[in-house]
């Protein structure tokens, strides 16, 4: 009997520790293969595998239909993946404040930065807005490109164009300074 068969799942749910170990061991390569295919091999994928296994371990008793283990494990993996994307910026924000440059070189980080988000975003095309939002949802450019069936470079070009449009909309004064500043 395979470790993922419903009878095996029932035994694991009923406290058979060996069966539970077998089940988790059988899930591990599936999850590893899945996460690697989505975010690549590396520590992040390893962490996601472990977190998903913990989620399955903790929630196994609540699984009402043992025949739906696949759906159960899939949702656990998808939830973990979304948590991972969401956490991308949490981790980064601990390194630097996204509201200002890392060193706030000009000391302007807190000045005049209240934005009319809707007005600013309305200057973007739906496609550009989609990319900006996907980025802020935590997706890397390569995955955004894959999702939108284009190339990473095309996505980055869109981001640059969005930046240009928003810059024009928000800080017209910068353009005047730009024209007189030396090249860097």
């Amino acid at each position, binding site marked *: 009997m395979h470790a993922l068969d419903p009878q095996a799942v029932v035994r694991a749910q009923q406290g058979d520790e060996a069966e539970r170990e077998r089940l988790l061991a059988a899930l591990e390569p599936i999850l590893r293969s899945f996460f690697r*295919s989505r975010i690549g091999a590396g520590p992040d994928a390893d962490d996601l595998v472990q977190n998903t296994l913990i989620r399955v371990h903790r929630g196994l008793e609540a699984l009402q239909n043992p025949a739906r283990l696949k759906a159960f494990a899939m949702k656990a993996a998808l939830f973990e993946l979304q948590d991972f994307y969401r956490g991308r910026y949490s981790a980064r924000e601990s390194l630097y404040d996204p509201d200002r440059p890392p060193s706030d070189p000009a000391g302007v980080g807190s000045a005049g930065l209240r934005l009319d988000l809707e007005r600013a975003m309305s200057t973007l095309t739906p496609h550009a*807005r989609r990319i900006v939002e996907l980025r802020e949802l935590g997706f890397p450019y390569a995955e955004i490109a894959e999702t939108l069936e284009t190339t990473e470079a095309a996505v980055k070009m869109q981001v640059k164009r969005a930046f240009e449009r928003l810059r024009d909309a928000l800080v017209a004064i910068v353009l005047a300074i730009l024209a007189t500043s030396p090249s860097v």
Partner: protein
Amino acid sequence: MSQSFDTLALYDSLTPNERVELDRAMEENPALAEAFSRWNSLRAAVRRELASDLPDRSLLVLYALQDDADLLDDRERARLDAAQNNLGSVLERHPGLVAAVRRIRADREAFEHAWSTHTQTNGQARAEVATQPSKQDRPALRVVHRRSSARWIWRIAAMITIVLGATLLVHLAMRDAGFETIRAADLMAYDLPDGSSVELAAGAVLMVPDEGNFRQARLMAGNALFDIQRVETNPFVIETPNASVTVLGTTFGVDVTDIETEVVLASGIVELASHADRDAPVRLEPGQRSSVLSLDPPSQPVSADVNAALGWTGDLFIRAENMAVIAAQLSDAFNTTVEVAPELAGEMVSGTRFEREAGLESALQELAMSLDARVTVLEGSGFRITL
């Protein structure tokens, strides 16, 4: 300056060295720093709004899976039903979330694939799975299959033709310790140890370090197209038997035959020096070529036909141009009409590299995507990019 502004938008995907450079530029230029602050403020505001509109991302997963009756349990379906109205309006407001739903559905397919692959009862199938390397585990050496769509580059492209004598080869062979030799029997790709990559034409011989400084390689024979990871403070150096090519950017090609090294640069910057005088390099601008014959100094850079020099790659290289010029170049390359709407004619597009095999329409779709435009088919024959 405008390049710095361009780079600001992609700050969080830059290398540490690129960030340091940009940080320095911001210290020197308050306008740059302020633009960056405002951009980040806007990004943070987008994040706050997304988090406010959809505090629980797991709902997005349930939403993406709801079409399959077997995937959600009763409790999850009830959660989704309760949130359905609000979720509908949130998705309407945020095209990014709609795309994220699409991504989750693709994730689901990937999971299904992983599951079915690993739970097959067929032993042979399982064995195949076990020995099939993942994308990341793949060996560095692989045969190149043409990419399915046009590829865009904002990096350095150069073409280097190298010709060398037997005595020089003997001399170099004495210095081969610590280098691995790759001999290309067919067109293939090779991942360099520093994360860069190179495409090798049949007959190319490349030596790469297996220890020590990974920002170097030796091209001993044949054609190659390098795609070099950019590290501002650590240029990549390609040694040929009679010359050195210092890469100050990222993508470039190499061709080796007998006693001459020729560099043709598509975009970006490279420096070429003879081994006889490494301190006297010439710097090439995009679209130029230079060569080193034996141990003579490099020739003065002159204009080059980049596409002719890089034709062996099967790709079409176009330097940063406005759309009107690019349309004309594509029209010539594919021998058909390519028109651009007047309002798009002046739009600048960064250095591009199109795969000829993918065809003109694929290239045009890529261009249109980057411009928020669309491609229409002209009556008779030809295409038009229009808003």
